[in-house]
């Protein structure tokens, strides 16, 4: 069989190319031969079926009267040649058949024409049309640009594909007003995820418009940070113990820091723990017992790690136990003259009650600043009278269901040995406890609590020690974590997160407004008079500023309220007065600082906007680009009166809509002829080939250095990129379209009533299998023949079950490589369930579709579309009178059908051992034993998958390699192939064959080819 190839000559590629007189002479000769020999040949043997009247297979050969006509329609003529050469045409039933010499004259002529075309244009970059990003590329690009995988095109119509089946070429990707509207919506959606930071901006995984979304984001940033820190004492003890026994553990040279890293604990805090355990002297106080436990730990012995672990936990539990006995307690306080029970009405009735935000914050401060301290009252000193318990019953606000609640006092039993202090020893013991508690805090951070400080069991869920009852707000309480565990870098990070919280979500401001101490109190004359009157429409004249003097968050208003509170505090608890004096200036300072930070940050946002645009456009911005973007922002602020954030959002939308982002255009530097792509354009070409996404910084750095086009550099970059996780896009977008499973997730042909095993999880797993396999071939640089012959594949629990492999435990996203999948008749792509299912019409298998998929997608053979009057086979295998193979054999008996069916039926019959959803089977749905025998052209009789593989190995392996090479090239270039690409395909095949068929060799050939590196001048093909 002749090499199948995919040759498409673009309509305008032949006639207008640069001229050379020798070539002209050859062309003239070819034209003469066409007119004198080939044309008459066609008239005699072909046009009775492929003419104006009949035009079978939609081929009208009368339309070609010159070589130029033929070159315009290269792919079809390639097919004509193929049919003539293989003597499939004219068909056996035809009345006239050409003598061998006559046939070869026509064949020779076309071979000569191909040769002529190829020699003249080998390596021609051809026309790579400008095009918009495909939906998939747009999604990947937005992911890499914003850092969040938003998939903005998920509701776009599916992209059409080109003749080779890929949806990434300008030939098929178009734009329309309705699609543009969707782009606009999508750009807005992405911009809704924007949030501004003190330095620059970022995007969240959810919209950031509503306060609650911003709030959620900021809170979770902090909580996630907390969760990343290890605060488990036992882990620290394990690390310290490992260090102590480093010799016995075979790491005599490891440092404390090494063990910190190995145990994933803070090196800083581990040093503190080590010193406390090893160098600190303890003759009294809580450390004595801890030291004893430490010394009791066993030395490392094989198989006895559990014993030591138990010891670490005992030490931890001891600390937690004694620490809980000395936790400080703070009663609710009030300010001013307020009823004894604290149940004043409203925040400002008489005095300030204990439920006021001011007093709640005071209480928060007390706890937050005492976590590394202890309550000395709890020590039981011999000879001292026991201290009476706190009078919590008469505590202000103790009884209110929604008040600050009753403090839960610490009650230690008399005679507690942990707390016992000999007579006269208080001072020494207090010093020992203070030291101990400074190293072992009662809590490292407050992550979550309940409505009332102590009543946390029933109503948890208030993150970050925040908000009283229904009041919101967040209060920072992480001093021990900050001081004991975090290093400088981490401290900065955490500080930034808390600053960001106000910056992003205005939490303090909203907390204060919610507390609402000055709002809508009076019914002043101004308020009374402000009844809206009828008047003409007035368009807004002034921008709305968030810092209106009227706002209760303004400094003037806060200070007014401060004064009012102070006045009410007179004659009450001095701590209450102090709390007021702390609260209002703190609120004011925070709000002013946030305000200032917002103003100060604006230049950094604009800088970040330009950087964002540069990355989005995948090239350095020109001065014009920058001016253009900044003036867009300016107009939004000045003319349209948008605030800074809204104007930023608009600017982002405009960047996302710019053709510089949404389109791939290789700028042409010259007017005519072939020239090198700029290194920036090349960076995009490379990244959209291997990642279906924008270039990363490293690639752009090479573009900037101007060395990307050098073969060494570009192949090294390609290797690097293929290792990156983003290379998955190559498996999905290239693999998915090459093997035609990209749309499998939407498959609706399977009858889930009859195949209850076909769940959405299984469907998802089927879709994932070829991606995992392809990605492995790509990233491990395996032989491309593994697609055909591999013994391994990848499964997750649901697919393993479907394949009858030993049961796997774990989640659906846990995939493993099964090296001996051949034991279950799997391995490589051929027996993958996704293809067997996709190419079965539901209630039966389809040897026709399965076979057609093998010869067409895998081997690259071109099969004409089925004629319109093809008889349908029954839909349900269970209702067939005859086995499917017999019905097919009957079908092939008709010579009209045989020509095509002979080419693929056998390739499908070998899969009869797999049911309609790719399950292995012995019997078909009608209860008949399945038969996987098939005979191939040349008489080989084989059975099953192994038989098919043997046939491919013997006869079709080169077809496979050629096909894969061609398809990869089409995908890489973003255009259909031309005759002149033929030498490159042959070259790819040669190189990959001599290099153990490694996948990356194909990529190397492509990225160093003139087709990939070059571009046509801007006026070439202008006169189309």
């Amino acid at each position, binding site marked *: 069989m002749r090499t199948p190839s995919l040759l498409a000559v673009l309509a305008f590629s032949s006639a207008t190319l640069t001229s050379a007189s020798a070539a002209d002479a050859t062309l003239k000769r070819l034209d003469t031969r066409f007119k004198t020999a080939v044309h008459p040949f066609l008239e005699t043997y072909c046009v009775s079926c492929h003419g104006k009247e009949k035009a079978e297979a939609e081929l009208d050969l009368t339309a070609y009267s010159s070589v130029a006509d033929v070159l315009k329609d290269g792919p079809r003529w390639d097919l004509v040649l193929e049919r003539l050469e293989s003597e499939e045409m004219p068909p056996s039933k035809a009345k006239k058949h050409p003598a061998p010499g006559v046939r070869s004259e026509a064949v020779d002529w076309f071979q000569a024409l191909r040769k002529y075309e190829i020699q003249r244009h080998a390596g021609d970059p051809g026309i790579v*049309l400008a095009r918009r990003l495909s939906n998939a590329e747009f999604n990947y690009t937005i992911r890499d640009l914003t850092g969040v995988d938003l998939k903005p095109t998920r509701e776009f119509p599916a992209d059409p594909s080109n003749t080779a089946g890929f949806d990434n070429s300008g030939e098929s990707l178009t734009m329309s007003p309705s699609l543009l509207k969707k782009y606009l919506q999508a750009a807005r959606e992405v911009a809704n995820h924007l949030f501004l930071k003190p330095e620059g901006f970022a995007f969240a995984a959810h919209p950031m418009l509503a306060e609650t979304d911003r709030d*959620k984001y900021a809170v979770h940033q902090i909580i996630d940070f907390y969760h990343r820190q290890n605060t488990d004492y036992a882990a620290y003890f394990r690390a310290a113990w490992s260090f102590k026994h480093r010799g016995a553990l075979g790491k005599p040279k490891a440092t404390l820091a090494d063990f910190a890293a190995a145990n994933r604990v803070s090196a800083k805090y581990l040093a503190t723990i080590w010193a406390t355990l090893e160098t600190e002297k303890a003759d009294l106080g809580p450390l004595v017992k801890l030291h004893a436990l430490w010394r009791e730990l066993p030395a490392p012995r094989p198989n006895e790690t559990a014993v030591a672990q138990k010891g670490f936990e005992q030490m931890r539990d001891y600390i937690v136990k004694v620490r809980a006995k000395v936790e400080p307690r703070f009663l609710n306080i009030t300010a001013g003259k307020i009823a004894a029970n604290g149940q004043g009405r409203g925040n400002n009735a008489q005095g300030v009650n204990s439920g006021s935000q001011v007093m709640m914050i005071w209480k928060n401060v007390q706890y937050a600043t005492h976590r590394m301290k202890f309550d000395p009252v709890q020590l039981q000193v011999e000879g001292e009278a026991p201290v009476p318990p706190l009078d919590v019953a008469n505590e202000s606000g103790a009884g209110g269901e929604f008040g600050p609640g009753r403090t839960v006092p610490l009650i230690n039993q008399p005679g507690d040995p942990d707390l016992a202090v000999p007579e006269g020893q208080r001072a020494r013991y207090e010093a020992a406890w203070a030291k101990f508690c400074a190293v072992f805090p009662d809590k490292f951070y407050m992550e979550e609590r309940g409505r009332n400080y102590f009543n946390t069991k029933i109503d948890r869920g208030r993150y970050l020690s925040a908000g009283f009852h229904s009041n919101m707000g967040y209060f920072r309480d992480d001093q021990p974590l900050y001081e004991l565990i975090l290093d400088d870098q981490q401290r900065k990070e955490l500080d930034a997160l808390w600053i960001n919280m106000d910056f992003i979500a205005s*939490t303090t401001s909203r907390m204060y407004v919610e507390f609402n101490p000055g709002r809508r109190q009076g*019914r002043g004359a101004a308020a009374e008079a402000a009844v809206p009157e009828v008047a003409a429409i007035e368009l807004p004249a002034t921008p709305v500023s968030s810092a209106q003097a009227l706002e209760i968050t303004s400094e003037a208003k806060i200070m007014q309220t401060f004064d009012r509170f102070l006045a009410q505090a007179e004659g009450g608890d001095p701590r209450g007065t102090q709390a007021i004096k702390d609260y209002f200036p703190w609120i004011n300072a925070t709000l002013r600082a946030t305000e200032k930070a917002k103003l100060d940050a604006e230049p950094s946002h604009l800088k970040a906007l330009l950087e964002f645009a540069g990355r989005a456009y995948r090239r350095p911005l020109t001065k014009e680009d920058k001016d253009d973007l900044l003036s867009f922002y300016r107009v939004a602020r000045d003319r349209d009166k948008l605030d800074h954030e809204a104007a930023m959002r608009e600017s982002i939308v405009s960047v996302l809509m710019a053709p510089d982002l949404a389109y791939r255009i290789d700028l042409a530097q010259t007017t005519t002829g072939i020239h090198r792509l700029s290194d920036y354009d090349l960076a995009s070409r490379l990244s959209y080939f291997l990642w279906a996404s924008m270039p990363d910084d490293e690639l752009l750095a090479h573009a900037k250095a101007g060395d990307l086009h050098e073969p060494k550099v570009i192949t090294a970059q390609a290797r690097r990129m293929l290792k990156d996780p983003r290379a998955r896009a190559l498996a999905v977008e290239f693999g998915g379209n090459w093997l035609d499973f990209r749309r499998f997730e939407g498959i609706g042909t399977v009858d889930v009533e009859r195949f209850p095993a076909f769940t959405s999880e299984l469907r998802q797993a089927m879709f994932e299998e070829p991606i995992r396999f392809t990605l492995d071939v790509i990233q491990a640089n395996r032989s491309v023949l593994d697609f055909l012959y591999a013994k391994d594949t990848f499964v997750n629990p649901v697919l393993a079950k479907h394949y009858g492999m030993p049961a796997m435990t774990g989640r659906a996203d846990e995939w493993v490589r099964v090296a001996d999948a051949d034991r279950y008749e799997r391995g490589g792509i051929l027996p993958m369930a996704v293809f067997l299912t996709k190419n079965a019409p539901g209630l039966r298998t389809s040897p026709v579709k399965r076979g057609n998929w093998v010869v067409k997608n895998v081997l690259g053979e071109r099969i004409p579309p089925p004629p319109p009057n093809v008889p349908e086979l029954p839909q349900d295998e269970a209702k067939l009178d005859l086995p499917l193979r017999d019905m097919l054999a009957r079908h092939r008996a008709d010579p009209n059908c045989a020509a095509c069916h002979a080419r693929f039926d056998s390739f499908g019959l070998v899969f009869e051992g797999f049911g309609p959803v790719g399950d292995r089977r012995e019997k078909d749905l009608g209860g008949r034993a399945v038969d996987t025998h098939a005979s191939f052209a040349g008489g080989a009789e084989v059975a099953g998958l192994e038989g098919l593989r043997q046939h491919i190995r013997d006869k079709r392996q080169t077809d496979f390699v050629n096909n894969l090479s061609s398809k990869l090239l089409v995908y890489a270039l973003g255009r259909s192939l031309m005759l002149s690409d033929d030498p490159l395909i042959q070259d790819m095949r040669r190189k990959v064959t001599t290099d153990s068929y490694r996948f990356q060799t194909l990529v190397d050939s492509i990225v160093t080819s003139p087709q990939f590196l070059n571009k046509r*001048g801007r006026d070439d093909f202008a006169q189309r």
Partner: protein
Amino acid sequence: MNTQPRQSRRQSTPIAPGFTRRTFLQGVGVTMALPWLESLAGAAPLPSAALDQAGGTANALPKRFAVMFMGCGVNPDHWWAKNSDTGIELGKTLEPLEPIKAKVNVINGLFNKKSTNQGIHPAQTGNLLTGVSFKKGSIIQSGISMDQVIANHVGQETIQPSMVLACEQPMTGYHESNFSNAYSSHISWQSPESPVPNEMYPSLAFDSLFENRGSLRNLSVLDRVKDRAAQLSRRISATDKVKLDEYLSSVRDVEKSIERMRVDKDKAFERARDKDQPVFTMKRPDNGLPEDLREHARLMCDIIALAFQTDKTRVASLILARDLSSLYYPFLDVNQQHHGASHTDTSEGYERVARFHLSQMAYLAKKLDAMPEGEGTVLDNSCVMFMSNMLSGTRHDNKKLPIVTAGGLSGTLKTGRVLNYLEAGDENRKVCSLYLGLMDRMGAKLDHFGDADSRLAGL
């Protein structure tokens, strides 16, 4: 506050029976919606072809829907209505509706099962208009609210798909029931994860109508995009130009359609103003938040009225006082915060709070009723629904919801009735069934919504 000169109503006789401007425009192939204004009085007679294609009057008038919300329930002793010989008889809290009671329905006994027995407050509010079960903890998940479903169906025809307003700032963080306070603060949800941000500033709500904010912004973006494409176009090959032109012409197309919409809207509005037609006009509210709640609420109602009359939007939601509200009512002589006051819901003070909010609804309904439109008024083509998330704040009882509507939705909703569903059985008293019925009439026909798959019987 009726601002329309009385006689204009008589002057504005339709030029031809059964004719409306909207249908005329549809007849001649303009599909953009226009405010239905009686601005063609005195215009030249229409070509008969256009008349032939025009449909019936009632169908052509736009229908509008507004929902108004107060949190924490009402005073159950004074929230009642009875059918009587002289139309319905209204309890004290509902008295503000007396002047328009023939256009009112009081609907008793409905409930939202998914928000019962979950926890108090946020869990009784976040799905009030969505009817789905929702999540505790930090992951917010409710559903799309019925007002937004309507907006998704009819919103494209107006400048603003919907207006989502509030007189009180949202809360964030978590309630002690471990439900997010976001549920207490929002009744309108555009997606299960994200509420529609509430607009609190009357000035910005106002601007959003007259600045045509969304479309203006899109025009600016498209304008810039066009410039960029033109710049690029100079540096690329002829074949690339063909592809880029495809983009450019798409941009131009979209631009034109937006401009057409703006121009049409503005023209119609101008024309009405020039002819002293009865378009309600109001002064642009000042920047900042009004300090007085009464002023704030009234401005929000005015903006909705204006938006409805001029067909800038057909869907509005207004939170007068959110759940867990911390509003104060010194002018009602109530010195507790709203939420605190609701814990003694049978007090006279809390009755005044509920009546205050209900009177905002009455204000809006009367305002719409004073706007002539076609044969009737804007109210006749609208439905304003007032509701709370519970009946009793003291008991946090949401087994029955207080609901009252005003307006007849162009004759599709019979009014002047008291509807009682309490005895009908839980299956037949779902508030989501009411929503299905209302959404139907608004042109958003769904098979099921929330926990309901049938329309409320007898609506």
